[in-house]
Protein backbone atom coordinates (compact mmCIF):
# COMPACT_ATOMS: atom_id res chain seq x y z
CA UNK A 1 0.00 0.00 0.00
CA UNK A 2 2.36 2.76 1.19
CA UNK A 3 4.18 4.96 0.57
CA UNK A 4 1.12 6.68 -0.84
CA UNK A 5 2.64 9.11 -3.35
CA UNK A 6 5.33 6.82 -4.92
CA UNK A 7 2.69 4.11 -5.29
CA UNK A 8 0.36 6.51 -7.06
CA UNK A 9 -2.44 6.16 -4.49
CA UNK A 10 -2.48 9.94 -4.09
CA UNK A 11 -0.79 12.53 -6.27
CA UNK A 12 2.24 14.60 -5.33
CA UNK A 13 -0.03 17.64 -5.09
CA UNK A 14 -0.95 16.42 -1.60
CA UNK A 15 2.62 17.07 -0.40
CA UNK A 16 1.90 20.42 1.22
CA UNK A 17 -1.41 19.33 2.71
CA UNK A 18 0.26 16.34 4.36
CA UNK A 19 3.20 18.52 5.47
CA UNK A 20 0.75 20.98 7.06
CA UNK A 21 -1.16 18.25 8.92
CA UNK A 22 2.05 16.54 10.08
CA UNK A 23 3.47 19.90 11.14
CA UNK A 24 0.42 20.63 13.26
CA UNK A 25 0.55 17.15 14.81
CA UNK A 26 4.29 17.43 15.42
CA UNK A 27 3.93 20.83 17.05
CA UNK A 28 1.11 19.57 19.23
CA UNK A 29 3.12 16.54 20.40
CA UNK A 30 6.17 18.72 21.12
CA UNK A 31 4.08 21.08 23.21
CA UNK A 32 2.24 18.28 24.97
CA UNK A 33 5.55 16.62 25.80
CA UNK A 34 6.77 19.77 27.53
CA UNK A 35 9.24 20.75 24.84
CA UNK A 36 8.08 24.33 24.82
CA UNK A 37 10.00 24.81 28.06
CA UNK A 38 13.70 25.44 27.64
CA UNK A 39 14.20 24.19 31.22
CA UNK A 40 12.88 20.79 30.25
CA UNK A 41 15.09 20.65 27.18
CA UNK A 42 18.27 21.93 28.79
CA UNK A 43 17.63 19.58 31.73
CA UNK A 44 19.16 16.73 29.72
CA UNK A 45 22.55 18.35 29.92
CA UNK A 46 22.28 19.07 33.65
CA UNK A 47 20.83 15.70 34.57
CA UNK A 48 17.54 16.78 36.14
CA UNK A 49 15.15 16.18 33.23
CA UNK A 50 15.56 13.56 30.51
CA UNK A 51 12.17 13.99 28.87
CA UNK A 52 13.83 14.97 25.55
CA UNK A 53 15.87 11.81 25.48
CA UNK A 54 12.90 9.64 26.40
CA UNK A 55 10.48 11.19 23.89
CA UNK A 56 12.89 11.11 20.97
CA UNK A 57 14.26 7.67 21.77
CA UNK A 58 10.68 6.38 22.05
CA UNK A 59 9.85 7.91 18.68
CA UNK A 60 12.95 6.33 17.12
CA UNK A 61 12.43 2.80 18.40
CA UNK A 62 8.68 2.77 17.77
CA UNK A 63 9.27 4.01 14.21
CA UNK A 64 12.13 1.55 13.60
CA UNK A 65 10.32 -1.51 14.88
CA UNK A 66 6.98 -0.33 13.52
CA UNK A 67 8.30 0.21 9.99
CA UNK A 68 9.77 -3.30 9.91
CA UNK A 69 6.36 -4.73 10.86
CA UNK A 70 4.59 -2.45 8.37
CA UNK A 71 6.93 -3.68 5.65
CA UNK A 72 6.28 -7.29 6.62
CA UNK A 73 2.50 -6.87 6.55
CA UNK A 74 2.73 -5.09 3.18
CA UNK A 75 1.46 -1.75 4.46
CA UNK A 76 4.65 0.14 3.63
CA UNK A 77 7.32 -0.71 1.08
CA UNK A 78 10.60 0.27 2.74
CA UNK A 79 12.41 0.10 -0.60
CA UNK A 80 10.33 3.04 -1.82
CA UNK A 81 10.63 5.46 1.10
CA UNK A 82 12.87 8.51 0.79
CA UNK A 83 16.18 8.30 2.62
CA UNK A 84 18.14 11.49 3.20
CA UNK A 85 21.56 11.46 1.55
CA UNK A 86 24.50 11.10 3.93
CA UNK A 87 27.37 13.62 3.99
CA UNK A 88 29.37 12.09 6.83
CA UNK A 89 31.83 14.81 7.90
CA UNK A 90 29.47 17.78 7.50
CA UNK A 91 26.73 15.90 9.37
CA UNK A 92 29.00 15.23 12.36
CA UNK A 93 30.07 18.88 12.49
CA UNK A 94 26.46 20.01 12.08
CA UNK A 95 25.34 17.75 14.92
CA UNK A 96 27.97 19.19 17.27
CA UNK A 97 26.91 22.76 16.38
CA UNK A 98 23.27 21.78 16.90
CA UNK A 99 24.15 20.31 20.30
CA UNK A 100 25.87 23.53 21.37
CA UNK A 101 22.86 25.53 20.24
CA UNK A 102 20.62 23.20 22.22
CA UNK A 103 22.61 23.73 25.46
CA UNK A 104 23.04 27.48 25.01
CA UNK A 105 19.55 28.36 23.79
CA UNK A 106 17.45 25.69 25.41
CA UNK A 107 15.56 25.06 22.17
CA UNK A 108 15.92 23.45 18.83
CA UNK A 109 14.27 25.18 15.84
CA UNK A 110 11.04 23.15 16.08
CA UNK A 111 10.56 23.51 19.81
CA UNK A 112 11.26 27.25 19.66
CA UNK A 113 8.17 27.71 17.49
CA UNK A 114 5.99 25.71 19.85
CA UNK A 115 7.28 27.89 22.65
CA UNK A 116 6.44 31.04 20.68
CA UNK A 117 2.95 29.63 20.18
CA UNK A 118 2.41 29.71 23.94
CA UNK A 119 4.01 33.15 24.28
CA UNK A 120 7.54 32.52 25.55
CA UNK A 121 9.81 35.54 25.20
CA UNK A 122 13.04 33.54 25.33
CA UNK A 123 11.82 31.48 22.36
CA UNK A 124 11.12 34.68 20.44
CA UNK A 125 14.70 35.82 20.95
CA UNK A 126 15.90 32.35 20.02
CA UNK A 127 14.11 32.45 16.67
CA UNK A 128 15.50 35.92 15.95
CA UNK A 129 18.95 34.42 16.50
CA UNK A 130 17.93 31.49 14.33
CA UNK A 131 17.17 33.74 11.38
CA UNK A 132 20.38 35.72 11.92
CA UNK A 133 22.21 32.39 11.85
CA UNK A 134 20.47 31.37 8.64
CA UNK A 135 21.41 34.69 7.06
CA UNK A 136 25.08 34.39 8.07
CA UNK A 137 25.15 30.76 6.90
CA UNK A 138 23.69 31.68 3.52
CA UNK A 139 26.05 34.61 2.98
CA UNK A 140 29.12 32.65 4.05
CA UNK A 141 28.11 29.49 2.21
CA UNK A 142 30.68 29.84 -0.63
CA UNK A 143 33.46 29.71 1.99
CA UNK A 144 32.60 26.20 3.13
CA UNK A 145 30.67 24.89 0.12
CA UNK A 146 33.32 22.27 -0.64
CA UNK A 147 33.17 20.93 2.91
CA UNK A 148 29.36 21.05 2.89
CA UNK A 149 29.21 18.57 0.01
CA UNK A 150 32.12 16.39 1.16
CA UNK A 151 31.87 12.83 2.49
CA UNK A 152 28.91 11.93 0.29
CA UNK A 153 27.81 8.33 0.80
CA UNK A 154 24.52 8.44 -1.07
CA UNK A 155 21.01 7.61 0.16
CA UNK A 156 22.22 4.82 2.41
CA UNK A 157 21.03 3.21 5.61
CA UNK A 158 23.10 1.56 8.33
CA UNK A 159 22.16 -1.82 6.88
CA UNK A 160 23.43 -0.77 3.44
CA UNK A 161 26.77 0.41 4.83
CA UNK A 162 27.44 -2.45 7.24
CA UNK A 163 25.52 -5.30 5.62
CA UNK A 164 23.94 -6.10 9.00
CA UNK A 165 20.17 -6.72 8.76
CA UNK A 166 17.87 -3.90 9.89
CA UNK A 167 16.35 -6.13 12.60
CA UNK A 168 19.68 -6.19 14.46
CA UNK A 169 19.85 -2.42 14.53
CA UNK A 170 16.21 -2.18 15.61
CA UNK A 171 16.83 -4.59 18.48
CA UNK A 172 20.13 -2.98 19.51
CA UNK A 173 18.59 0.52 19.51
CA UNK A 174 15.61 -0.73 21.49
CA UNK A 175 17.84 -2.29 24.17
CA UNK A 176 19.98 0.86 24.37
CA UNK A 177 16.91 3.10 24.52
CA UNK A 178 15.15 1.04 27.20
CA UNK A 179 18.33 0.81 29.26
CA UNK A 180 18.79 4.58 28.99
CA UNK A 181 15.19 5.15 30.16
CA UNK A 182 15.80 3.25 33.38
CA UNK A 183 19.28 4.66 33.97
CA UNK A 184 18.17 8.26 33.39
CA UNK A 185 15.28 7.77 35.81
CA UNK A 186 17.80 6.91 38.52
CA UNK A 187 20.01 9.88 37.57
CA UNK A 188 17.02 12.22 37.66
CA UNK A 189 16.05 11.08 41.15
CA UNK A 190 19.53 11.70 42.50
CA UNK A 191 20.01 15.08 40.86
CA UNK A 192 16.55 16.36 41.76
CA UNK A 193 17.15 15.67 45.42
CA UNK A 194 19.89 18.31 45.41
CA UNK A 195 17.88 20.96 43.55
CA UNK A 196 15.81 23.10 45.88
CA UNK A 197 14.93 26.16 43.80
CA UNK A 198 13.02 24.35 41.06
CA UNK A 199 9.84 22.34 41.52
CA UNK A 200 9.37 19.32 39.30
Amino acid at each position, binding site marked *: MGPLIPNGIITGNWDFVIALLLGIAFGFILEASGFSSSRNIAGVFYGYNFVVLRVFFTAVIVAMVGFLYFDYFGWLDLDKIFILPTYLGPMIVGSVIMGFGFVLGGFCPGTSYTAIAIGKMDALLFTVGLFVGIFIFSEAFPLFEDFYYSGYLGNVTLSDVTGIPA*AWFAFAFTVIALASFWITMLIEKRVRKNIKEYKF
Partner: protein
Amino acid sequence: MNRNYFFLTVLMLVLAAGTFFLNREPEYEQIKPEKLLYDIIQPTRYVTTDQVARFIIDKDPTLELVDVRSAASYDHFSLNNAINIPFDSLLSPNYQDYFGIPGTKVVFYSNDDILADQAWVITRRMGINETYVMKGGLNCWIETIIQPKEPPEDAPYTAFELYQFRKGAQMYFTGAKVDNSVVKKKKVAVRRKKKQKVAAGGC
Protein backbone atom coordinates in the same frame (compact mmCIF):
# COMPACT_ATOMS: atom_id res chain seq x y z
CA MET B 1 8.82 1.53 40.21
CA ASN B 2 5.91 2.18 37.92
CA ARG B 3 4.35 -1.10 36.83
CA ASN B 4 3.25 0.38 33.47
CA TYR B 5 6.82 1.27 32.58
CA PHE B 6 7.90 -2.28 33.27
CA PHE B 7 5.09 -3.66 31.12
CA LEU B 8 5.90 -1.29 28.23
CA THR B 9 9.60 -2.14 28.44
CA VAL B 10 8.90 -5.85 28.13
CA LEU B 11 6.41 -5.26 25.29
CA MET B 12 8.91 -3.17 23.34
CA LEU B 13 11.64 -5.75 23.82
CA VAL B 14 9.36 -8.55 22.59
CA LEU B 15 8.32 -6.52 19.53
CA ALA B 16 11.94 -5.66 18.74
CA ALA B 17 12.99 -9.30 19.11
CA GLY B 18 10.09 -10.27 16.85
CA THR B 19 11.65 -8.33 13.96
CA PHE B 20 14.28 -11.09 13.69
CA PHE B 21 11.58 -13.41 12.43
CA LEU B 22 10.22 -11.05 9.78
CA ASN B 23 11.16 -12.26 6.36
CA ARG B 24 12.21 -9.31 4.16
CA GLU B 25 12.66 -11.36 1.00
CA PRO B 26 10.55 -9.81 -1.73
CA GLU B 27 7.35 -11.73 -2.18
CA TYR B 28 5.33 -10.84 -5.20
CA GLU B 29 1.68 -10.28 -4.61
CA GLN B 30 -0.52 -12.40 -6.77
CA ILE B 31 -4.00 -11.59 -7.99
CA LYS B 32 -6.79 -14.08 -7.38
CA PRO B 33 -6.95 -17.05 -9.79
CA GLU B 34 -10.52 -16.16 -10.77
CA LYS B 35 -9.47 -12.65 -11.70
CA LEU B 36 -6.48 -13.95 -13.66
CA LEU B 37 -8.66 -16.42 -15.56
CA TYR B 38 -11.13 -13.68 -16.36
CA ASP B 39 -8.36 -11.43 -17.66
CA ILE B 40 -6.83 -14.23 -19.73
CA ILE B 41 -10.00 -14.91 -21.68
CA GLN B 42 -10.45 -11.22 -22.43
CA PRO B 43 -8.97 -10.06 -25.74
CA THR B 44 -8.46 -6.56 -24.34
CA ARG B 45 -4.81 -7.27 -23.60
CA TYR B 46 -3.98 -7.33 -27.31
CA VAL B 47 -2.93 -4.30 -29.26
CA THR B 48 -2.52 -4.54 -33.01
CA THR B 49 0.67 -3.80 -34.88
CA ASP B 50 -1.13 -0.84 -36.44
CA GLN B 51 -1.88 0.59 -33.00
CA VAL B 52 1.74 0.10 -31.92
CA ALA B 53 2.98 1.72 -35.13
CA ARG B 54 0.70 4.68 -34.51
CA PHE B 55 1.95 4.99 -30.89
CA ILE B 56 5.55 5.00 -32.09
CA ILE B 57 4.95 7.47 -34.91
CA ASP B 58 3.02 9.78 -32.56
CA LYS B 59 5.90 9.45 -30.06
CA ASP B 60 3.40 8.53 -27.35
CA PRO B 61 5.25 9.18 -24.05
CA THR B 62 3.11 6.64 -22.19
CA LEU B 63 4.26 3.74 -24.40
CA GLU B 64 6.85 1.33 -23.01
CA LEU B 65 7.75 -1.36 -25.52
CA VAL B 66 9.32 -4.43 -23.96
CA ASP B 67 11.09 -6.98 -26.14
CA VAL B 68 11.00 -10.28 -24.23
CA ARG B 69 13.21 -12.17 -26.69
CA SER B 70 16.87 -12.93 -26.03
CA ALA B 71 19.46 -10.16 -26.03
CA ALA B 72 20.95 -11.53 -29.28
CA SER B 73 17.58 -11.37 -31.05
CA TYR B 74 17.02 -7.88 -29.69
CA ASP B 75 20.39 -6.73 -31.00
CA HIS B 76 19.58 -8.21 -34.40
CA PHE B 77 16.26 -6.41 -34.75
CA SER B 78 13.96 -4.51 -32.42
CA LEU B 79 11.26 -1.89 -32.59
CA ASN B 80 12.02 1.79 -32.06
CA ASN B 81 12.75 2.70 -28.40
CA ALA B 82 12.00 -0.83 -27.17
CA ILE B 83 13.81 -2.09 -24.09
CA ASN B 84 15.03 -5.65 -23.82
CA ILE B 85 13.92 -7.69 -20.81
CA PRO B 86 14.60 -11.32 -21.71
CA PHE B 87 11.78 -13.58 -20.63
CA ASP B 88 13.95 -15.50 -18.16
CA SER B 89 14.94 -12.20 -16.49
CA LEU B 90 11.41 -10.89 -16.12
CA LEU B 91 11.36 -11.43 -12.34
CA SER B 92 14.85 -10.01 -11.82
CA PRO B 93 14.85 -7.10 -9.34
CA ASN B 94 16.92 -5.12 -11.87
CA TYR B 95 13.90 -4.81 -14.16
CA GLN B 96 11.09 -4.30 -11.66
CA ASP B 97 11.28 -0.53 -11.90
CA TYR B 98 10.09 -0.72 -15.51
CA PHE B 99 6.70 -2.06 -14.45
CA GLY B 100 3.80 -0.46 -12.65
CA ILE B 101 4.72 3.13 -13.54
CA PRO B 102 1.46 5.12 -13.24
CA GLY B 103 0.17 6.29 -16.61
CA THR B 104 2.47 4.00 -18.61
CA LYS B 105 1.28 1.17 -20.81
CA VAL B 106 3.73 -1.69 -21.18
CA VAL B 107 3.48 -3.55 -24.49
CA PHE B 108 5.25 -6.90 -24.67
CA TYR B 109 6.29 -8.35 -27.97
CA SER B 110 8.24 -11.34 -29.20
CA ASN B 111 8.52 -13.11 -32.55
CA ASP B 112 4.95 -14.32 -32.12
CA ASP B 113 2.28 -14.05 -29.41
CA ILE B 114 3.38 -16.93 -27.23
CA LEU B 115 6.35 -15.57 -25.28
CA ALA B 116 4.80 -12.12 -24.93
CA ASP B 117 1.57 -13.72 -23.70
CA GLN B 118 3.49 -15.65 -21.06
CA ALA B 119 5.23 -12.44 -19.96
CA TRP B 120 1.82 -10.77 -19.73
CA VAL B 121 0.44 -13.58 -17.53
CA ILE B 122 3.43 -13.35 -15.18
CA THR B 123 3.14 -9.60 -14.78
CA ARG B 124 -0.63 -9.87 -14.28
CA ARG B 125 -0.04 -12.47 -11.57
CA MET B 126 2.29 -9.98 -9.91
CA GLY B 127 -0.63 -7.56 -9.87
CA ILE B 128 0.83 -5.20 -12.46
CA ASN B 129 -1.83 -3.43 -14.49
CA GLU B 130 -1.59 -1.67 -17.84
CA THR B 131 0.31 -4.44 -19.61
CA TYR B 132 -0.49 -5.47 -23.18
CA VAL B 133 0.64 -7.87 -25.87
CA MET B 134 1.37 -6.94 -29.48
CA LYS B 135 -0.88 -9.28 -31.40
CA GLY B 136 1.06 -11.49 -33.80
CA GLY B 137 4.45 -10.26 -32.61
CA LEU B 138 7.21 -9.26 -34.97
CA ASN B 139 6.05 -11.73 -37.62
CA CYS B 140 2.80 -9.82 -37.90
CA TRP B 141 4.75 -6.53 -37.75
CA ILE B 142 6.73 -7.56 -40.84
CA GLU B 143 3.59 -8.68 -42.68
CA THR B 144 1.49 -5.63 -41.89
CA ILE B 145 3.83 -2.71 -41.40
CA ILE B 146 7.06 -3.51 -43.22
CA GLN B 147 5.54 -5.40 -46.16
CA PRO B 148 1.88 -4.38 -46.35
CA LYS B 149 -0.24 -6.01 -49.02
CA GLU B 150 -2.62 -4.08 -51.14
CA PRO B 151 -6.25 -5.05 -50.51
CA PRO B 152 -8.29 -6.49 -53.39
CA GLU B 153 -10.28 -4.07 -55.46
CA ASP B 154 -13.59 -5.07 -53.95
CA ALA B 155 -12.33 -4.51 -50.36
CA PRO B 156 -14.19 -1.93 -48.27
CA TYR B 157 -12.99 1.64 -48.10
CA THR B 158 -11.58 1.19 -44.60
CA ALA B 159 -9.22 -1.51 -45.86
CA PHE B 160 -7.73 0.98 -48.31
CA GLU B 161 -7.44 3.57 -45.59
CA LEU B 162 -5.59 1.05 -43.43
CA TYR B 163 -3.37 0.18 -46.34
CA GLN B 164 -2.51 3.83 -46.87
CA PHE B 165 -1.60 4.13 -43.19
CA ARG B 166 0.57 1.03 -43.40
CA LYS B 167 2.35 2.37 -46.45
CA GLY B 168 3.03 5.56 -44.53
CA ALA B 169 4.25 3.56 -41.55
CA GLN B 170 6.44 1.49 -43.86
CA MET B 171 8.06 4.65 -45.10
CA TYR B 172 8.53 5.85 -41.52
CA PHE B 173 10.14 2.66 -40.27
CA THR B 174 12.13 1.59 -43.34
CA GLY B 175 12.73 4.85 -45.12
CA ALA B 176 11.10 3.40 -48.24
CA LYS B 177 10.21 5.80 -51.02
CA VAL B 178 6.74 6.42 -52.32
CA ASP B 179 5.80 3.66 -54.71
CA ASN B 180 4.48 5.44 -57.75
CA SER B 181 3.62 2.23 -59.51
CA VAL B 182 0.57 1.87 -57.34
CA VAL B 183 -1.03 4.97 -58.66
CA LYS B 184 -1.24 4.40 -62.39
CA LYS B 185 -1.63 7.42 -64.46
CA LYS B 186 -4.68 7.18 -66.60
CA LYS B 187 -4.61 8.70 -69.92
CA VAL B 188 -7.16 11.35 -70.13
CA ALA B 189 -8.62 11.66 -73.51
CA VAL B 190 -8.56 15.22 -74.53
CA ARG B 191 -11.42 16.22 -76.63
CA ARG B 192 -10.68 19.07 -78.73
CA LYS B 193 -13.49 21.12 -79.97
CA LYS B 194 -13.59 21.46 -83.57
CA LYS B 195 -13.11 24.92 -84.68
CA GLN B 196 -16.28 26.36 -85.86
CA LYS B 197 -16.06 27.72 -89.21
CA VAL B 198 -16.84 31.29 -88.96
CA ALA B 199 -18.57 32.76 -91.88
CA ALA B 200 -16.10 34.75 -93.81
CA GLY B 201 -16.78 38.17 -94.84
CA GLY B 202 -18.86 40.79 -93.32
CA CYS B 203 -22.29 41.77 -93.64
